[in-house]
C-alpha cells in the first residue's frame, strides 16, 4: 500500500476555499496470446499526487508524478494559484459549496499484485484447451488483464478514505468463417472484482463457458443477416446494462444536463414503461455487494445510491457537489477521477435496470417475430438519448422459438421513447464490469440488468 502522505497536510489547506488532496497509485497488467504467440506482455505502474482547490465558483488543479509530501504541498500551492488566476479573470462570484458529512473510513484490505508469470500460467492452458478441442477456428486470442486504483483522499470538509479497487478479467476471442469465407467472431469476458487469483480462480473453471462461446460461434457461421428496421427484441441482461449506462445514465449526469441533455426538462415525468426502474448503486444492490463498490468519492462525499428512474418516472440526476448545489440535489458520491493527474468528473458507478417478474423462456414464447440479442461489443449514446449498441451474438425468434444466429449488427433507438415500449422484464440480474466508460477520462464502471422485451431499430440487410 502507498504510504500516507496526505493526512497530515489537512491543516495546510487554504482558508476560505474548499480543498481536496489525493495520492494515487494505479496498476495495470496485461498479457495477450494471439494464435499461441505472446504478442503482449506488459506491466504499468503510475503514481502521483494531486490537489484541487475551489474558490468562488472556479477550480484550480495541479498534479505531480511524485508520491511525497513535498510534491503534495507544491500541488496544493499551484492549485490555489490556478484557482486565483481564473477567479481574477472570470469573477464568477459564487459562494462556498454546501456542507457535506465529514468523517473517515478505515483503509480497505490490501490485495496481491501477482507476478507476470501467473497471468501467463493462466492463459497458456486456456489457449491449449481451445487449440486442442475446437476444429473450426481460424484464430484465437486470449487476453488477461488486471487493473487497480489505490487512492488516499483528504478534503477540507468531507470524508477521508484510503481506497483500493482491483479487478481482473480474461477475454476469449474466437474467430471462424462462413462457408462463403466471411469472417465471424465472438468474444466474452470472464472475471470480476478482486486480484486476478481471486477473480478468476483456475483456468478450467471457465472451460464450460468457453464451450458455450464456441457453440455461439458455430451457429454464427451458419448465421443470417438481421432484417433492418423497427423490431421486437429481447435484450439480454448484458445489453440492458449497457442501455442503462449509455442511453439513460449519461443523459442524467448533471454536467450533461446543464449542457442541454434531453433529460433536463423530463425530471418528474414518465420517461419509461412503469415496469422500468433504474439506480446507480454505490456499493450494495438488492442486499449484495456490487462489482465495483464506491464508498467515498474524490470530493470526500460519503457514497450512497442515486435513484434515477422509479416505476417509469425520472426522479433524479447524478450530481457532484457543485451541480448538486445548482439542482438542489444531495451529492451521492459520483465525482470520480481516473488517474492521479485527473480532476473528478461526474461518473456512473454500478448502474442497473431493476429486475422484474417475467421468465426469459416466457418472454421468448410470447414473441412471434423478433430477435434475442445477447452480447455486445460497444455502445454509444448522446445527449438526445439516441443510442446505438453493437451486437455480436444474437438469434432470430420465430413463432416463440429461437431460430438462426445473426451476423454482427447494430441496434439503435431513442432511450426515453424505447423504454416506453418495454412490456416484459425478466426476474434475473446480470452484471458486467470489465469495461471502461469514456468521458474525457476513462473510468472502470459496472452495469447490469434483466432481460427486457422492447422495440428497437436494428441494422442489417
Amino acid at each position: 500500500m502507498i504510504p500516507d502522505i496526505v493526512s497530515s497536510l489537512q491543516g495546510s489547506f487554504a482558508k476560505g476555499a474548499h480543498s481536496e488532496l489525493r495520492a494515487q497509485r494505479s496498476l495495470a497488467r496485461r498479457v495477450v496470446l494471439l494464435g499461441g504467440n505472446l504478442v503482449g506482455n506488459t506491466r504499468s505502474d503510475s503514481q502521483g499526487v494531486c490537489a484541487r482547490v475551489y474558490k468562488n465558483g472556479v477550480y484550480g488543479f495541479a498534479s505531480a508524478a511524485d508520491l511525497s509530501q513535498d510534491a503534495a504541498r507544491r500541488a496544493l500551492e499551484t492549485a490555489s494559484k490556478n484557482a486565483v488566476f481564473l477567479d481574477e479573470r472570470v469573477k464568477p462570484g459564487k459562494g462556498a459549496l454546501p456542507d457535506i458529512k465529514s468523517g473517515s473510513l478505515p483503509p480497505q484490505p490490501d490485495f496481491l499484485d501477482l507476478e507476470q508469470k501467473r497471468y501467463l500460467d493462466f492463459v497458456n492452458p486456456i489457449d491449449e484447451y481451445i487449440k486442442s478441442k475446437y476444429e473450426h477456428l481460424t484464430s484465437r486470442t486470449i487476453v488477461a488483464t488486471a487493473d487497480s486504483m489505490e487512492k488516499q483522499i483528504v478534503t477540507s470538509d468531507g470524508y477521508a478514505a484510503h481506497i483500493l479497487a482491483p479487478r481482473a478479467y480474461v477475454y476469449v476471442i474466437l474467430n471462424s468463417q462462413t462457408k462463403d469465407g466471411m469472417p465471424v467472431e465472438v468474444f466474452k469476458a470472464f472475471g470480476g472484482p478482486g486480484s486476478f487469483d481471486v477473480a478468476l480462480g483456475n483456468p478450467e473453471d471457465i472451460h464450460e463457458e468457453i464451450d458455450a462461446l464456441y457453440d455461439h460461434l458455430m451457429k454464427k457461421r451458419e448465421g443470417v443477416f438481421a432484417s433492418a428496421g423497427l423490431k421486437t427484441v429481447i435484450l439480454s441482461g448484458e445489453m440492458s446494462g449497457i442501455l442503462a449506462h449509455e442511453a439513460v445514465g449519461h443523459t442524467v449526469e448533471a454536467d450533461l444536463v446543464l449542457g442541454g441533455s434531453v433529460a433536463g426538462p423530463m425530471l418528474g415525468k414518465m420517461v419509461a414503461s412503469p415496469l422500468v426502474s433504474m439506480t446507480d448503486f454505490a456499493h450494495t444492490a438488492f442486499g449484495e455487494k456490487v462489482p465495483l463498490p464506491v464508498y467515498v468519492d474524490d470530493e470526500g462525499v460519503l457514497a450512497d445510491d442515486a435513484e434515477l428512474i422509479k416505476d417509469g418516472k425520472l426522479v433524479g440526476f447524478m450530481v457532484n457537489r457543485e451541480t448538486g448545489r445548482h439542482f438542489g440535489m444531495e451529492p451521492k458520491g459520483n465525482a470520480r477521477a481516473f488517474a492521479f493527474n485527473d480532476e473528478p468528473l461526474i461518473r456512473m458507478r454500478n448502474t442497473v435496470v431493476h429486475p422484474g417478474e417475467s421468465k426469459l423462456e416466457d418472454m421468448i414464447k410470447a414473441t412471434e417475430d423478433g430477435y434475442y440479442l445477447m452480447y455486445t461489443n460497444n455502445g454509444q449514446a448522446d445527449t438526445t438519448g439516441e443510442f446505438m449498441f453493437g451486437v455480436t451474438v444474437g438469434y432470430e425468434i420465430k413463432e416463440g422459438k429461437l431460430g438462426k444466429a445473426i451476423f454482427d449488427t447494430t441496434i439503435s433507438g431513442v432511450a426515453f421513447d424505447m423504454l416506453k415500449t418495454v412490456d416484459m422484464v425478466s426476474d434475473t440480474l446480470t452484471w458486467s464490469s470489465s469495461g471502461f466508460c469514456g468521458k474525457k477520462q476513462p473510468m472502470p464502471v459496472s452495469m447490469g440488468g434483466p432481460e427486457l422485451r422492447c422495440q428497437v431499430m436494428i441494422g442489417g440487410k
Partner: protein
Amino acid sequence: MNRELQAAKQALEHLLVDGVHDASVSASTSRKSEFTVDSGKFNLLRTTLDHSLGLMAIKGHCRGTVSGNSFEEEAIKAAARDCIASAEAGQPDEAWEIAREGEGSFVSGAPEPDMDKLFTRTKELLDSVKAEYPKVMLEQVVTAHTTHKSVYLNNHGVQYESTSGSYSVSLMFSGQEGEKSSSFNGAYLITDNLDTPFLELSNIRQNLADAENQIHTKPAEGKFEGTVIFTPDCLGSMLYSLIGNYVTDGVLLDGTSLWKDALDTKVVDERITLSMNPSDSRVVNGEKYTGEGFISQDFDLIKNGVLKQFMLSSYGANKVGKTRAPNFSYAMIMQPGDTPLEELIKNTKKGLLVSRYSGGAPGTGGEFSGVAKNSFLIEDGKVTTAVSETMISGNLAGMLKDIVGISKETVEDGTGSLPWLAVDGITISGK
C-alpha cells in the same frame, strides 16, 4: 544531462544484465496547462507534470515490457527487474526486433505556453460562438498547451531526443432551441501557435453552423440504397476502422484480414491515395521516430487504389514476412479530388451527408452498421432536412471500391488532411 536522458541511461544500464540481448528505454516528461469550460463557463485551470518511463527487454528471444512514471533510482531499478522477470516468464520468439541504428535531436512546435493569450483566445471563442451561433450550446470546451520532452535509447547505440509543444482545442456542442436539441458533436484540433482565432481553424465554423441546423430532425423514410458523403471528420474515423480491420498486426497475424494477400494489388478505387505523412507541413509535431527506435518516414498506404504497405510493427512484419511500416503516426493525408463539394452534393439523387458515425466496431470482414449522427438528407442534389434514427450499413472496403467522387476541399486539424468522400451502395434505413 536532462532528467529524461539521465533516467533512460540508468534504466538501460539496469536492463543490460546477464542474457538480455536487446533492451530499449523511452523516458519523457510532459507539462500540461489546461482550461476547462463547462456549459459555456470557465470552470477549471489544471496544470499537470507527468513523467513516463517505458522499458523493454528481450532475453533468450523472450520479450517483456514495463511502464512507469517515476524517475527515482529505486523505482527505475524495480521497473528494470520487473521487465526482465516479465521477459523470463514469456515464450521465445525470434521475430522480436529493435532498431540497430539511428540518432537525432528534434525540436518542434511551441515549447513554452502563453497562458494569458490561451485564456484570451478561449474567451474569444466563447464570445464569438455566443454572438454568431446563438443556438449552439457549448457543453464543454477544453483548451490546453502541452510541452513534451522525450528520449529513446537502446543497447545498439540508437538515441533520439525530442522537445515539442502544441496547443489543443477540444469542443463538445449541440444545437438547442427550447427543449429541442441536436445530437452532440465534437471537434478537436492541434496547432503550434495562437495567431488565428480558434473559430477560424479546421472545420469548426461549419460544424457549429450544422449543429444549429440539426435541431429539428426526422428519420429517413424506409430503407433504400443510396449515396453517402462522409465529411472529413467522419471519414477519418472510417479510415481508422479500415486500417484496423485490414492492415494491422492483429488481423494479419491471425489471418482474418481480407487484404492479407492483397499487397501491390488494387484494393479500392484508383482515385484513392492515402498516405501516412508525419513530416507533412500540415501535421503539427509529427512523429519523429517509432516506438521501436526507427526514424519515421512518410509512406503511401494506398496509392492510386493499390495497397502499397501494411501497418506492421517489426515483430508483425517478421512474423508474416513483409516490411514494417515506416511510421506509426496515423498522420493521414488523403489526396483530394477535383470536384467541389457543392458539385458532389448536386450530383447526389438520394443519400446522406454524414458528419458522425455511431456504430458497433465493424466485423472482421469490414461489415458495419450504425447510426448516422449529425447528418443531413440529400434529395435531388440538395441538402434538405437533418435526420435522426437513421442507420447506415455497408462494407468498409466495398464502399471504397464504389466511390462517386472526392472533394477538392480538404480539412486540416493539425493531425492530417482529409477531403469529403462520396460513396455509393450504402444501405440507409429509417422508419
